[in-house]
């Protein structure tokens, strides 16, 4: 499918781009090339395209990006009855939307770096481009801080984060995932990214985040989450089992493996009671404010 090819090309072209943004870009391109005659047909083909994309990259972010785009289509199509004009408006607004969300990481970094005080010791989990951006901004503001990164098995993404931080001349130490409790007494604050932010204000992120959140609560350290607003997703998990299987495992694993109970999940759910604040491009939010934002969008 050329959708998949385009998506992969987008991801390769800019490795720094969020996967949701790449998904939205792909869907916009799909929209431009679509030859459908009706809006309903358009919606159906877009849903098909989104399913295609989630078949390639089953992360929450791609799913939320796709849903947001569909919502965008529905909202725009309500305003204009004529398909061709509708499509033109959609394309314009789509480009505008992409422009705005490409600035979202900068907004988040601007909000968050003030919370990093001089001499702070920060703990983070795995590789997050948003957290990296925040730390870049703080380093640019001449703040002195040091970072502990968890190795984050099974893919050792933490090492990638450590390399990126070393390039910024930030003192960084890689710790075992099991050493989170050990290291927390030295740490001043914990900052993590998120793959998805759910309706309750909790987050879905790389496995090991929940553990880190529980330990920070026990040590009374602030647990901050940085995420762009397009990651808000309409899920309300009540516990770890509630998170749909399609997000927990990689797309290839889902297709090939018969017995999922023998596989290790790649993500976990952190409930809102463990999160102190969320930094998004919509502002600094308490977890209870997240559902408000989602309601404003979907109702």
């Amino acid at each position: 499918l050329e959708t998949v090819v385009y998506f992969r090309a987008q991801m390769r072209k800019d490795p720094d781009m969020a996967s949701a943004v790449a998904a939205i870009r792909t869907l916009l391109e799909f929209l431009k090339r679509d030859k459908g005659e009706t809006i309903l047909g358009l919606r159906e083909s877009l849903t098909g395209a989104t399913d295609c994309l989630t078949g390639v990259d089953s992360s929450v972010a791609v799913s939320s990006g796709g849903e947001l785009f569909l919502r965008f289509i529905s909202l725009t199509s309500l305003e204009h009855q004529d398909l061709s004009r509708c499509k033109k408006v959609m394309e314009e607004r789509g480009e505008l939307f992409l422009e705005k969300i490409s600035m979202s990481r900068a907004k988040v970094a601007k909000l968050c770096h003030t919370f990093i005080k001089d001499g702070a010791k920060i703990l983070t989990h795995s590789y997050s481009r948003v957290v990296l951006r925040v730390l870049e901004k703080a380093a640019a503001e001449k703040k002195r801080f040091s970072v502990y990164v968890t190795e984050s098995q099974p893919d050792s993404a933490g090492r990638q984060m450590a390399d990126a931080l070393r390039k910024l001349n930030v003192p960084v130490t890689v710790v075992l995932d099991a050493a989170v409790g050990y290291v927390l007494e030295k740490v001043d604050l914990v900052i993590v990214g998120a793959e998805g932010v759910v309706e309750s204000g909790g987050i879905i992120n790389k496995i090991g985040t929940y553990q880190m959140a529980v330990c920070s609560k026990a040590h009374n350290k602030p647990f901050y989450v940085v995420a762009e607003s397009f990651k808000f997703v309409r899920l309300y998990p009540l516990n770890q089992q509630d998170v749909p299987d399609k997000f927990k495992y990689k797309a290839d694993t889902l297709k090939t493996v018969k017995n999922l109970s023998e596989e290790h999940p790649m993500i976990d759910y952190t409930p809102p009671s463990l999160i102190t604040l969320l930094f998004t491009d919509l502002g600094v939010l308490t977890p209870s404010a997240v559902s408000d934002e989602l309601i404003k969008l979907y109702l």
Partner: protein
Amino acid sequence: MPGPDKETDLTERIEAFLSDLKRGGSGTGPLRGSAETARETTALLRRITAQARWSSAGDLMEIIRKEGRRITAAQPSETTVGNMIRRVLKIVREEYARSRGSSEETDQQESLHKLLTSGGLSEENFRQHFATLKANVIEAINELLTELEGTTDNIAMQALEHIHSNEVIMTIGRSRTVEAFLKDAARKRKFHVIVAECAPFCQGHEMATSLSKAGIETTVIADAAIFAVMSRVNKVIIGTQTVLANGGLRAVNGTHTLALAAKHHSTPLIVCAPMFKLSPQVGRLSSLNSQFTICISGEILSKVNVHCPVFDYVPPELITLFISNIGGHAPSYIYRLMSELYHPEDHEL
């Protein structure tokens, strides 16, 4: 036409206000309550609107912001000043939107919805001139002033719902709002009040005297006895200097201790705070604000470092309820009230 006399008169008043604020902070001038500061700030802003020279809403907001930055720099710990400035800026924006006839006032905040549906990067530059804008803004500021005058009464009116007969209430230091609250309840109910004296200024003593004059049975305790006495307390009612955006408090020192003791005994902690104390700042205060120093005499003075923080940070998890002039709210709801009072672009003056 406002002549040069009016301009100098205006600058004189601003200078007088600034020096008053500075003196109030150093402890030499009369200690003013936050309500008075809020009222005086709003009156000053009304005067600026009336007398300064401006042709469009954008100019007015620039002037207010400039003066606002000066005033907040004079006394950074007095957050009510900044809050009132932000309220007035929001008023100006609303009146401008109303004059333009647009219904944009409902969707001023950033939201996911706005991201998806807006037609362009809307740069609202407030350049249009409206003749009636000045009158509308001044009228709205007058409404704000009336609201400010009624805040303590509005809070006190809610007292009977929260205080029951034969209860033991604990408070700390001196808060005019809590005083009015308790006095209002005392008209119909009999209860006991324990006041923690709140060293080193021991404002608790004045609070106790004032309450006992109103016929309330009051006991004064030392701050160190808070935990010991807490098991006998039914409710803790306190005032605060500022309410932060995450639902936390910046209150007089000793309040965090009180809050932790209340949490330990599962005693509800009620904060009486009028809406003008709500500030868009977030986060913990790691910096010590020692503006007051204690007198230590003798040789020890050279060998000792004295830190005397004026304010405490109380995290939102320790607070049960906020009682404001518009009713009772949970700490997790404060962000919503904030979005209704201030515009996000005004958070940073």
